[in-house]
C-alpha cells in the first residue's frame, strides 16, 4: 500500500534524525581500555595553542617519574560535552582541565572528584604558591578541588586612546565619569562602548562588575549558595537601575546584539575608532595584536572598571576568568604521582613556558619572570591587579553549573534589549538552581 510506505518516510526522516543525534551521545563509554594503563596517568586538557606548555611539562614529569603521564586533548568547543560523557566511564582521565566553580560542582556532587586537602597537607606549597583570590575559585563546599594550571584573565575596560583624545575625554575612573564620557562620545557620533551582544557573555560582564561595585562580592555568593532573596535586594535593584541607565543613554548604540566578539566584530569597532571602549577579558590585547597590530601597539589603552560612589564593593575587586584548573578524580590509581605532577604547576619552568605563550600564571613566583613576557608592562599591570584584588569574581556563567548558562545568557540579553525589566531579570535569576 503506497500510503503506508510513503508516510513514514516523510515523518520519520524529520523526527528520527533528531532523536538519533540525541541518543547517540548516550552510547559513550563502554569498553574498557585498562590495558597498558597500569602505570600511566592520563591528563585531559582543552585543546588549543597552550597545549605546547602542557606537553612540555608532561615530558619533564616523565623524565623522573616511574608512572608516566599521558596528555590527551579535546578540541576546544567540544571539551565540556565530551568531558561530561567520559568522566564517569572507564576512559575517565586521572587529571583534567576545568574552569573551577560551577564547572566542577556537578562532578563533586556526583562524588567523582578527590579533595586536594591531603595533598596540601603533605605539600603546603600546592596552595601557598598560588594567589589566594585565584585558588579560591576551585573550592567547593570549603574544600580545594583544583590547582591553577594556565593563565589568569581578568576583565578590564579597554579603550581607544585616539578616540578619547579627539573627544577630549579621559579614561573614566568613576561611574559618573563614564556616563559623562558616553554623552560626549555620542555627541561626536562615536558609539561609546563596543559590545559583542551576539555572544551574550560580553553583556554578562557588565552585570558582574556593576553588581560587584554596588553590592560587593557577597551578594552573588549568597545568590550562588541558593539564597534567592539576594536577587531582589535593594542593591540588586540599584545595580540593574544603573545598567538600564547606561543602556538607555545609548552607551552601546542600537545594534550590539548583531555584533559578536568571537567573529572579530566588536574588537574591530574599537580598533577602527567606531567605538571608544570595550569591556573584555585580558585576551583582548592578544586579539587586537593579532587582528589590528598597529592599533594594539599605539592606541590600545586599558584600565579597571570604574568605581561606584557609595558602592559596597572594593574598587580593586576583579571579575573574569580567574584561571583554569587541574582537578583529580577519586578513582585515580596513582595519587602520589598525581601529586607530583601537580607540583610542577608552580615550578619555574611552568611559569616561563606559560609567559612564553602569552599566558599570565597566578603563582607567587610569577613576578620573577615577568620581564621575559612578550609585553612586560601589560603583564605586570595585570599581575598586580590580580595579586591585590580582595575578591576575584568568577564569571557568572562559570560560577553556576552548566545547566544555568542558557538562562543567564538569555536574561542578560533580554534585560539589555528591554524584553524584560528588572523584575523579569530578578525572576530569571531566581529560577536558577543553587550551585
Amino acid at each position: 500500500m503506497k500510503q503506508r510506505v510513503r508516510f513514514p518516510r516523510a515523518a520519520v526522516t524529520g523526527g528520527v534524525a533528531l532523536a538519533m543525534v540525541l541518543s547517540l551521545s548516550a552510547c559513550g563509554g563502554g569498553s574498557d581500555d585498562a590495558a597498558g594503563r597500569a602505570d600511566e596517568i592520563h591528563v585531559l586538557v582543552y585543546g588549543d595553542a597552550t597545549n605546547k606548555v602542557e606537553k612540555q611539562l608532561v615530558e619533564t614529569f616523565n623524565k623522573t617519574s616511574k608512572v608516566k603521564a599521558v596528555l590527551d586533548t579535546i578540541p576546544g568547543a567540544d571539551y565540556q560535552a565530551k568531558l561530561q560523557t567520559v568522566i564517569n566511564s572507564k576512559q575517565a582521565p586521572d587529571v583534567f582541565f576545568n574552569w573551577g566553580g560551577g564547572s566542577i560542582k556537578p562532578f563533586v556532587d556526583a562524588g567523582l572528584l578527590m579533595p586536594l586537602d591531603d595533598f596540601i597537607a603533605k605539600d603546603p606549597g600546592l596552595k601557598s604558591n598560588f594567589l589566594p583570590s585565584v585558588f579560591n575559585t576551585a573550592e567547593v563546599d570549603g574544600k580545594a578541588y583544583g590547582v591553577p594550571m594556565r593563565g589568569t584573565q581578568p576583565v578590564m575596560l579597554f579603550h581607544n586612546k585616539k578616540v578619547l583624545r579627539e573627544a577630549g575625554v579621559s579614561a573614566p575612573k568613576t561611574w559618573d565619569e563614564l556616563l559623562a564620557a558616553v554623552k560626549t562620545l555620542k555627541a561626536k557620533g562615536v558609539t561609546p562602548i563596543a559590545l559583542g551582544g551576539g555572544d551574550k557573555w560580553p553583556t554578562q560582564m557588565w552585570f558582574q562588575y556593576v553588581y560587584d561595585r554596588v553590592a560587593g562580592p557577597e551578594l552573588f555568593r549568597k545568590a550562588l549558595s541558593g539564597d534567592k532573596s539576594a536577587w531582589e535586594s535593594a542593591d540588586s535593584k540599584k545595580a540593574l537601575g544603573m545598567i538600564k541607565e547606561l543602556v538607555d543613554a545609548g552607551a552601546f548604540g542600537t545594534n550590539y546584539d548583531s555584533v559578536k566578539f568571537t567573529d572579530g566584530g566588536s574588537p574591530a569597532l574599537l580598533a577602527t575608532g567606531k567605538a571608544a571602549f570595550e569591556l573584555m577579558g585580558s585576551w583582548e590585547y592578544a586579539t587586537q595584536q593579532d587582528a589590528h597590530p598597529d592599533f594594539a601597539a599605539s592606541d590600545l589603552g586599558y584600565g579597571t572598571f570604574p568605581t561606584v560612589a557609595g558602592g559596597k564593593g572594593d574598587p580593586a575587586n576583579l571579575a573574569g576568568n580567574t584561571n583554569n584548573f587541574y582537578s583529580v578524580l577519586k578513582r585515580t590509581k596513582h595519587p602520589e604521582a598525581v601529586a607530583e605532577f601537580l607540583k610542577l604547576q608552580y615550578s619555574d619552568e611552568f611559569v616561563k613556558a606559560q609567559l612564553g605563550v602569552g599566558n599570565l600564571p597566578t603563582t607567587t613566583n610569577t613576578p620573577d619572570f615577568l620581564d621575559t613576557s612578550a609585553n612586560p608592562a601589560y603583564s605586570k599591570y595585570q599581575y598586580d591587579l590580580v595579586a591585590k584584588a580582595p575578591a576575584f569574581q568568577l564569571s557568572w556563567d562559570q560560577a553556576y553549573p552548566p545547566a544555568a548558562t542558557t538562562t543567564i545568557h538569555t536574561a542578560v540579553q533580554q534585560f539589555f534589549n528591554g524584553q524584560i525589566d528588572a523584575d523579569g531579570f530578578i525572576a530569571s535569576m531566581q529560577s536558577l538552581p543553587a550551585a
Partner: protein
Amino acid sequence: MTTATAPAVDSEQTERTAPPRGRSASEVGRPGFAWAAPAAVFFGLFAIVPLALVVVLSFAGWDGLGPPRFVGLDNWKKLLDDPVMLESLWLSVLLTGLGVLVQTPIALLLGVWAAGHQRNRAVLSAVYFVPLLLSVTAVSVLWRAVLDPNFGVPSQARWLFGDGNLLGTQAGAIGVLAFVGAWQFTPLHTLIYQGAARAIPKVLYQAAEIDGAGRYRRFFHITLPQLRNSIITSTILMVVGGLTTFDTVLILTQGGPGTDTTISAYYMYQKAFKSFDFGAGAAVALLLVLVATVISLVLVRLSGYDRMRSTMEGL
C-alpha cells in the same frame, strides 16, 4: 486453460492459476525479505532503537554522569508549562512556512526558466546551483559576515537596513534565517522543477499555441498542472528540512535575541548539550517528532501525495 482464451476469468483466479507466460506483476523479480534486510537492520539500529531509547530517556533525569534516574512525567510536565517550548514550536512552524512561501515561487519560476535549452540558461543554471554545493555552516558564517551591521552590507545601505540590527530583533533575525535558508536551498528545488518542466511533453504546448494560448495561459494551464507532483515533492522536502533546521540557527543567532529564534531543534540541543539535561532534551526531541509526524500526515492527506496520479493521463 490459458487466460488469453478464457473470456471471463476473475482476476483473483488468474493470479493463482496463471501460467508462466501471463505472470502477474507481483511475482516478477520480486525480491524476498533478505534483500531488504541490510536497509532494515540499518534503519532499525540507527533510527528505531535510538528513538526507543529517547522515549525511555524522556521519562528520566540524566546529566550524563550517574545512571539515569526515573522521574515519571516530570520532564513532560515541565515542558508543557515552559513558554519557551511552546514558542519554539511556533517558531519552527513559522520558519518552515516562511521557507515554503519564499522558496516555492522563486524555485518554480527559476526552474521553468532554466528548463529551456538555450545556452545562456544552461550556464546560469550552473551558477545558481553553486550555493547548494557549499556547506550550511560555511554559508551561515559567510552571511553573518556579509550582514555585519558595522562592516558589512548594512553599513553601506543605511536607507534599507537602518542601524543594521538585523540579528538583534526578532523580525530581523527570522528574516535573516529565512533568507539564508532560501539562498542555500532554492537551487535544490529549482533543480527539481527544471527536471520536471523538461519532462512536460512538447505536444501540449504546441497544441495550446495552435489554440492561441499566450505565454501566461500556457504557464498556468499547462506548466503548473503538469508540475503538480513536483510541487508536492518539493514542499514536503522543504517542510522536513525546515522543521529540522539547526545549523543556521546555531551559527547565525544562537536562538537569540533572548529566545526569539529558539526553534525546537535548537532548544533540544540547548537542553541536552548545553545544560546537560538529557531527559528534558529527549522530551523536546519527542515532541518535535510528534509535531513533525502530524504535519507530515496532514500534508500527505491534503496534497494527495498518497494517491499520486500520473500527469500523463490522456497522452
